[in-house]
């Protein structure tokens, strides 16, 4: 378990809501990490604030990954940030509609976001605006579709040599 830091969590929430108000959609502690959902319009500014504010100092992007919410027809990106000085970790979430999956890039904030955004584009089709080289990274270049979306089948649906009706896949 990561150490719970209620004081620091409160500080993060106050600073974000003071700056962005309504655009901070929800704040909750899931398991051992503060999770903040923010609107996609302010995500870049919010990340910049979290990195550059003298008290917050989230100078390390632990990981960035995509999400797919088929129920609401939304795609999302989850950022895990780490303040190494105070050993404080938070999770930032943002969601965008499937029909217009555009988000500003974070690769100008942390260079480590570069490949992780390419990976997210590769698997979810989220277009990161301002990314220096947004092309597929792990899949083949001429791949059709975005494989980690929930509507992308795991196996070739034309196969007839397998019967999975009993246990599902």
């Amino acid at each position, binding site marked *: 378990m990561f150490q719970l830091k209620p004081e620091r969590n409160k500080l993060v929430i106050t600073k974000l809501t003071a700056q962005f108000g309504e655009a901070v959609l929800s704040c909750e502690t899931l398991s051992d990490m503060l*999770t903040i959902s923010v609107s996609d319009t302010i995500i870049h500014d919010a990340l910049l604030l979290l990195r550059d504010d003298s008290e917050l100092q989230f100078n390390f992007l*632990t990981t960035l990954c995509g999400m797919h919410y088929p129920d609401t027809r939304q795609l999302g990106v989850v950022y895990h940030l780490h303040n190494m000085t105070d050993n404080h970790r938070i999770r930032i979430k943002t969601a965008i509609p499937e029909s217009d999956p555009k988000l500003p890039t974070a690769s100008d904030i942390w260079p480590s976001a570069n490949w992780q955004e390419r990976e997210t584009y590769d698997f979810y089709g989220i277009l990161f605006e301002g990314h220096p080289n947004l092309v597929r990274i792990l899949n083949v270049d001429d791949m059709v579709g975005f494989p980690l979306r929930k509507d992308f089948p795991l196996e070739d649906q034309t196969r007839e040599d397998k019967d999975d009706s009993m246990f599902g896949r």
Partner: protein
Amino acid sequence: MAKEIDADYWERDFIKAEEPKEYNTLNVGPTHPATHGVFQNVMLMDGEFIVSTEQTIGYIHRAFEKIAEHRPFYQITPLTDRLNYCSAPLNNMGWHMTVEKLLGIETPKRVDYLRIVVMELARIADHLICNSVIGVDSGALTGFTYLFQDREFIYEIYEEICGSRLTTNMGRIGGFERNFSAKAWDKIRHFLKSYPAKLKEFERLLARNRIFMDRTINVGSFAAERALAYGFTGPNLRACGVDYDVRVMNPYSSYDEFEFTIPIGQSGDTYDRFMVRQEEQWQSLRIIEQALAKLDKMEDKETYYAQDPRFVLPPKEKVYNNMEALIWHFKIVMGETDIPAGEVYHCIEAANGELGFYLVSDGGRTPSRLHFRRPCFIFYQAYPEMVKGNMLSDAILTMSSMNVIAGELDA
């Protein structure tokens, strides 16, 4: 047909000829002995110096994140084996701990110590490969062939514990599948006795070797700020002088009860990375010794899993004779146990750095999303910046000292 020579051909000074320079494109990989894995570097070369590099990765992408969304939890362990296959038990344990965090399982102390023994053995196995391969790439094959016997011996220990060697699928959610056998303990103790002398000898071969030092010092050095910005973790970050270690920062599996030091380097060059990994092996040995001492002191020698019915299989004799136990067994194997909805992020200090698992569960039998934070994938993107302006032979050494494992890179 002979080329026609113009009149002033013999007067021209070819050596002093300047612009335009001619750059050559060089492919290092995808299958090149020096990349130690399947990935490609397209290098733009000015003579022997590197102007720019572009990496192509994904040659062994196996869609683990997609597959994981369609497998019950315990069937994901074999997928994690194949991330960093040089230290598979570390990945296994990391995954088990992630699920335990989601389910809220408290593991007994004895399980924690057993895990630490296995994890530190895996760390030694990983570091010794990386370090001896740095030797190979700088032209010293001896240490490699010599230390490989000990890697083999570590694999024999794995074999005693779980039955397999490279891709171990070791342990279960909540602990281990069986207790360590007497033979396994004998082998661990034998390893602890015999390995230090060999490691010392290996260190003597390279650490103060003039040729090795000339080849590695100030090669591929990287500043701490850049390393942090690029998301470096593990030995590569510590070689730059940042003492970030998950085992200390966010202790898991009772690491907080152990005494060990985190070695750090100064300039983040190949030599520092080598020395950090070397020292970490000594620290790992120290940790294993402490764990053995703690285990010896414990009266309980039988506990090897957490008492949680959701993932621990009932004993076989009960399964064969008792209907409830059979149903229970079947439910676990078919992945029909109750799993709470929720999301967790858990990370461990794997051999290459912070190996993270972001697990989102919607209460179904499979994760609704599982993301692996693979340290290799994140720090390898800094490679062009590290080798720019270096010579090709130095770039090879830089790559092997970063310990880029293709399995982890491509998921």
